[in-house]
């Protein structure tokens, strides 16, 4: 796999993962609110989940860059 194609492939996979993480965490936020967590905690929840999401994206991006085949 040549370097340019590899970069594109990794980028696309990270993009899909980012989308998934965004949707999942948003779903967690909405479910939390529906389970009775007061609306005023919405912002701290968003900040917390955004931090978790960012860490996950970084993890997956680095993970994929290391493992993605280069042959």
């Amino acid at each position, binding site marked *: 796999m040549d370097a340019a194609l590899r970069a594109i492939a990794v980028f696309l996979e990270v993009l*899909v993962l980012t989308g*998934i993480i965004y*949707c999942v965490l948003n779903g967690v936020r909405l*479910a939390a609110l529906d389970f009775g967590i007061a609306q005023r905690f919405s912002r701290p929840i968003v900040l917390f989940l955004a931090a978790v999401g960012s860490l996950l994206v970084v993890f997956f991006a680095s993970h994929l860059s290391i493992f993605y*085949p280069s042959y």
Partner: protein
Amino acid sequence: MDFWTGQLSYIHDVFKPIIIAVLIFSPILLAAFAVGFYRRLALWRVGRSDSRSGNVLARVRTTLGVALAHLRLLSEAYPGWMHFLIFWGAAMVIVGKLIRLFSYPVGIDNPPQEVFLYSSLMSEIGAVVIIIGGLLAVYRRYVLKPSRLDTKPDDTLIFPWVFLILVTGFLIKGYRIATSDADPTDWATWSPIGYGFSKIMATFATDYRDQILVWHRVVIHTVPAFLFGIYVFITRSRIQHLWLSPLNIFFRSLRPKGELVPIDLENAEVWGASKIEDFTWKQLLDLDACTRCGRCEDNCPANLSGKALSPKKLVQDLREHLYEVYPYPVKKPAETRRDMLSEVITEQVIWDCTTCRACQEACPVYVEHIDKIIDMRRNLALERAEFPESAQQALMSLQSRGHPWRGTTATRTDWMADLGIKVLSEDSNVDVLYWVGCTAALEDRNMKVAIATAKIMQAMGINFGILGVEETCCGDPARRMGDEYLFQTLCQKNIELFKGYGIKKIVTTCPHCFNTLKHEYPQFGGKFEVVHHSELLADLIRQGKLRLGSIQGMKVAYHDSCYLGRHNDIYQQPRQVLDSISGLTRVELARSGKRAFCCGGGGGHMWMEEPAEQRLNVRRTEQVIEAGVDVVATACPFCLSMFEDGLKAKEKEDSIAALDLSELVVRALTGQPSE
């Protein structure tokens, strides 16, 4: 079978995490659904009781009809087919995946296993179908933006979420194919999309293949899928209609469409609804089941004429109020709350409704708007004595003179002078009671309809009579204006009168009287055979007794009365009558049949003042003018009066005539106008 054996080397690596995820998340999903369901149940149960359990077979039939065959939904092509694609695509994916998952315990190298091959193909086709339906939905919601749709952030989230779950499904399959040694032709047959993905995917060295990469590819697919399930089942998302809609359809009303539920005036703790708890559990379920699709709003004549009422908003406002009064967890109601009949739903909105039923006929999940509106009116009328001024005057006239036509000097027998019609107080030996109704008896224009109908019955040799001065209002205006007490008084008085004369069969020209006598009098022990004159005429024509001549060169549009059409499903008979007149050309109005636009006279509006720019009859008259007809035919005295006024307002009274069916029949019989 290469497709299967080729997957053998990695199938366990891929399936193991999926099975583990299923085992972990299924109980969580079930528990979350149970909690969410219990919460809803607790909310609905704050409402009053209502028996909705009878006739299970009919309930199941309709539920399946809407869910599987998309009854009602397909009446609008774009959103209907869009929903059809998403629903059936999802069904294919779910069934395909379940079968596929089943292959894990039973093994995949054990022919014949063709069913698994087809399940693989079915899932892929299903996913593509969902994506096509989803793209149609996105285009409609974000590009076409019909005004009836409102978009909340939760709605937007659904689209990328579903899309990504489907794409990651293809990714997993693509990866499995890329690492397989099976014959490529076989792959392309049973997994065409996954095969395509495999072509653009890199494969990993064996060391990594069974490791974390397999895991994360699987995990990013299954975990979001499960969380999506939880989100769908318990949150406010629009997609919770997956379970709420079938539930609501199952418990729909099986009463006759035009029938209102009576109040037990002696024992009811509250008359009508002034608080959210005064609604029944089913009325509260309605609020949750509304999908916010806006079809009701798009069909509501009041809304389309610029009035404050939007049936969709009414339902959503009540729902918001329910959740405001009973915040989670449902224990006791909030200590302070807004007044439902002034601050949540304004009085204006409550009185704007003509009870035309266009909203209910359009609603794909069978939400019942009219009962809620009438319940709120009942409370305003009976407990708060708050009415629009003009409604109050009509009710006072009903109370004191037995009819709502305040100011008329006519008597109930003026119209029949010299016609030789039997009056029951003088001769009760009749087969049929002609129930004239207040409007045909007392309003100048409509007296001609009574005359025409009587002449036809005489010509047909029907032995009929009328009640004359003994006739009082059937009670429809009182009931629809919320004065249930007055309605029940009138109703019981009439029933006694009918029974006193031994009446068995009643003919009437008014769809409102027809509906009330036929469906609402039995609630109080008054069971009679009630026939609308359009049914009678069609019947006489079918039997060959009534042979109509011709009316040359007349172009006619038939306007469906709401209480004849939507409330009683009488659409064909009036058309059959018109079609049997030769030389007459019948055309359909742009909105006709189930979608007919109300004339504006129902629900007591015949006697309520309306701002000139919001008059429904003017709107409907414009549609008649657009149709380019000579005559608008009706089978309802309210519609007739409304068109008379509308045509005058549009200065078209000289070029377009509003005529009742009976008047056209007389003209076809005699060659002369009916007067």
